[in-house]
Every structure is written in C-alpha cells, then in structure tokens.
C-alpha cells in the first residue's frame, strides 16, 4: 500500500486511441479482445458469406462447381483465410473459457500460459488450413 502511495502509477480507465498504443495488454487480454473481434467478424459474415457459400456448395453439382470457381479467386481466398483464422481463434479461446468454468487453470501464471497455447494452436491450424486453401497439396 505504501508503495502505491509514494509512487503514482499510470491509470487507464476509459482508454483513448492514443493510450491504446502505449497500453500493455497481456497475452490473455489479447486473446480476449480477439475472441470478441473474431466473433463479431463471424456474425457479420454469416448471411453475407458463410451461408451463401454453404448454399452453393450443397445445392447442386453446378452450384458446387460455381462455388469452387469463386473460391479459386485470390481475393476470396484471402477473405476465407481471415474467416478461417477467426473461426479457429474463437474455437480455441472458447475452449479455454470452458476449461476455466471447471475451475481449472485460473491462476495468473497458468492463464498467461494457456493464452499462449491458444495463439500457438489457432495460428498453427490457420497455417495448415491456409496451405490447403492455397493449394500446397
């Protein structure tokens, strides 16, 4: 207590855009805000991209072929890559939250560690699906 009284620490309440740049967000915090961003992204793309693509893929052999043609376009592939990352990050970070609900791994150190695992797994899987998407095999 005496420490905080003698040495005023910077306070961040409602962050301004300028403060946002200097504010050090721990890894768990980055995982958290990206969980929200990826969720919002998937929500917005649901009726605009995801359901239309799904509809084309299952309706008829002709629409399936047309879907494959759209997806072959590089811009479409980039958009899909972002959505694949969004899905994988939301999936991995979500499982981490479900584990917390079981009161597992809620100490500060292990929360940072599990956030690192979320980034490791979701980004590695994004690379794997990305390579598949861009035709590495």
């Amino acid at each position, binding site marked *: 207590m005496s420490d905080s009284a003698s040495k005023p620490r910077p306070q961040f309440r409602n962050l301004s855009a300028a403060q946002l740049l200097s504010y050090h967000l721990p890894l768990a915090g980055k995982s958290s805000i990206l969980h*929200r961003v990826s*969720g*919002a992204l*998937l*929500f917005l793309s*649901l*009726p605009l991209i995801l*359901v239309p693509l*799904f*509809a084309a*893929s*299952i*309706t*008829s*052999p002709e629409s*399936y*072929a047309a879907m494959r043609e759209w997806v072959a376009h590089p811009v479409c592939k980039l958009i899909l890559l972002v959505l694949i990352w969004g899905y994988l990050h939301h*999936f991995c970070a*979500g*499982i981490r939250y*479900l584990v917390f*609900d079981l009161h597992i791994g809620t100490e500060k150190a292990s929360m940072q560690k599990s956030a690192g695992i979320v980034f490791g797994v979701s980004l590695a899987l994004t690379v794997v699906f990305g390579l598949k998407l861009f035709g590495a095999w």
Partner: protein
Amino acid sequence: MTTQQRLGTKRLVVGAHYGTLDFIVQRCTAVIMAIYTLIVFFGFLFSSEMNFEAWQHLFTFHLGVLPVGQLLATLAFFSVAWHAWIGVRDIWMDYVTSAGLRLFLQVLTVLWLVGSIVYFAKVLWSL
C-alpha cells in the same frame, strides 16, 4: 423470497436469472457447435473421395426415415444464432451507451440472425 441465496458473503442474488440463463446458454451452445464441428470435420476427413455427392451427404444423410444430417445441421445452426445473439448483444451493451441506439442495434441483430436462420433452413430443407 424462499429462493434467495447468498453468493459469497455479501451479494444477495435476486431477480429473474436472465443473466444466468444467458451464461448457461452461451456455454451449452458452444459445446454443441464444437461437437458438430468435429462431426463434420471427421466426416469430411474420412470420406473416401471428396466431391459434391460426398459433401452433400454429410448434411442430408438419413438413419432409417429420420433426416439426421439435416436435423443435426439445423440444431447446430440454431446454436450458432443463439450464441451469436448473446455475444453480439454483450458487445452493444459494453460499447453503446445510448439506450435508443442500442435498442436499434439489438433489433437489427435479431433480424440479421433470424434472416440467416430462414435462409439456411430454406437451402438445407429444400434438398
């Protein structure tokens, strides 16, 4: 008043428990979506050859007379929509302080999701 209970030492929990319902629903729908993701992913992986017929079959297969593929996909999609509703509403509640604008965005969110459900169901059940 018989259902009142204390959480910890101070907080008296009262009300209709809508927050508790949302909390539970957010987690149950998450588990349903995760399981369905794995079902489709492994169905895709273990299809001997991936083409239109095999892909469509993942969502239209029957067990006896039951259209299990379509039922599972529809239930999973309801989970997506309910999960998204809770998540997106939380975003509006956190960042939008004007009650009027928030209500407007929440109504828009419901229309967006119900529209998605109808679109998805129409495509899936007309196969």
